[in-house]
């Protein structure tokens, strides 16, 4: 009786042996016909669907699996870590208290905060400027986890981040508070410092003018 390992080896070798093809299989033609049958079935089915979609029939049966990217976007999981945003208080000022925990924990060192004195004694400080260099960011989400005030989140569902320069990857505090403000053609602004009244005014400015 051969040992178990020998039996296993034997079975593996048997399985890897090249099987001799039968005459029918060596003819190739039936296999080619089968393959053509499969691809042509897909072709005619999809062609029919494409044509009837044009006249508005069978719209719920997709003719392709393609997502036409810029126009159609895939539905993302809400848990997906996407571009950052800063949360606001009711009056439009950032919820950030300038504790520097996120800047400290950031493994890529891509967060830059300038804290300022807050007039309310119950609030520690506020972020005059809050910048993230997305060119460095590794999307680890540590900043979100470490924040004691829930002031930063990564749930904008924006992942189509592209720029023509490294500076274009820079997000200032306005863009972080109001995602989508800055157009990709705008020149990047670094370390934009705002005081509390600016933040309040920003809340009421339409996005197209505030950038």
């Amino acid at each position: 009786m051969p040992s178990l390992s020998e039996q296993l080896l034997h079975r593996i070798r048997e399985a890897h042996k090249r099987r001799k093809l039968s005459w029918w299989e060596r003819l190739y033609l039936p296999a080619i016909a089968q393959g053509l049958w499969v691809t042509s079935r897909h072709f005619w089915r999809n062609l029919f669907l494409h044509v009837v979609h044009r006249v508005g029939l069978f719209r719920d049966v997709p003719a392709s699996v393609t997502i036409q990217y810029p126009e159609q976007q895939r539905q993302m999981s809400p848990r997906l870590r996407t571009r950052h945003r800063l949360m606001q208080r009711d009056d439009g000022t950032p919820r950030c208290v300038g504790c520097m925990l996120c800047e400290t924990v950031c493994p890529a060192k891509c967060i830059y905060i300038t804290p300022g004195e807050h007039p309310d004694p119950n609030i520690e400080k506020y972020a005059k400027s809050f910048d993230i260099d997305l060119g460095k960011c590794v999307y680890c989400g540590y900043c979100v986890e470490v924040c004691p005030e829930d002031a930063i989140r990564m749930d904008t569902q924006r992942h189509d981040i592209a720029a023509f320069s490294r500076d274009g990857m820079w997000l200032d505090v306005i863009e972080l508070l109001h995602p989508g403000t800055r157009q990709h053609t705008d020149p990047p602004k670094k370390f934009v410092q705002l005081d509390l009244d600016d933040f309040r005014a920003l809340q009421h400015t339409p996005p197209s003018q505030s950038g």
Partner: protein
Amino acid sequence: MAIDFVIKLALAGIVLFAVLNLAGLQTWVERKQSAIMQDRIGANRATFALPWRWAAPINWLLRKIGGLGLLHPLADVMKLLTKEDFTPSTGNRFLHTLAPWLSVFFALIVFAAIPFGDHVELFGRSVELQVAQLNAGLLYVLALASIGIYGVILAGMASGTNLSVLGGLRAASQMLAYEIALGVSLVGVVIWYGTLDLQAIVRQQGHYLWGWCPEWGIVVQPLACLIFMTAALAETKRVPFDLPEGEPEIIGYFVEYSGMKFGLFFLTDFIETILVAALTTVLFFGGWQVPYLGPEGFAFPWGGMIALSRLTVVLLGVAAFTLKVCFFLWLFMAIRWTLPRFRYDQLMNLGWKALFPLSLANIGATSLLRVLVR
């Protein structure tokens, strides 16, 4: 004399126009058919707009055409024409430039012998719808199709790099192997119809076996048809047989080509595909013959009769020829996007050990049958 010349020129112009446009459309068909087969959408982005206000309807049309991907061939050509024309320093600039022209020239000139319709009366002359009425048309086709290899080998050699030389040699041995099976398989057809004239072969296919079955090549020479189509597909150097090119990994004879010179090789592939489709139609699928369509109209074997004018009959024939060619283009494209590439030993085994003996056997069987039937 002058009018003969003009008629010939017009015929040549029509054929050239049709073939080149069909070749351009093939790039579109290639993109779209492969996409639809694979549950994708395919090219649909290339478009442009005219800047003037009055051009709004044209722009609407351009958007629609662009949405179908039909402007991609145009974009391709623009890209190829504006690319750098590069010759490696180890290569021979003259031969390097000559090679793509040779390929395309010999692929195009074969179409002169292809009959695409019945004869028509023009200016008191009977004009065959065929550019050159050669009584050895089949030999002409085979000879020029083989000369096309020179372009390929020359491209590999004149590039002066090892990989392209190897690609050229692979092409040479592959085409040699399949050229023989191709030629020998057609001997059966020649024996059966008793002529080398392609127009005469098509005329013969208008006869009927047992009074109802069209005497098409596929009916009387099914094995030759299969061998011819396989070998001819190998001649076009497209995917199941694309070892000379081997774009993804083994690198073929046109590695060192860029811009429109590369484009010409690409064009040659498509023209050869059309050529193979046309030859298959002419030799095995009745050319411009429509079943039961005689010179006076349809005459069905069960006794029906539809009278048609001479012009209608000829036009129907041309339409039938075009349709048959288009069907084969579709079939070849489907084969190209279905089958994986052969390994080199499999390719050689298929050519020398399967197709060649089979075509020889076909000659024997056909001769025997011909003698028995007569």
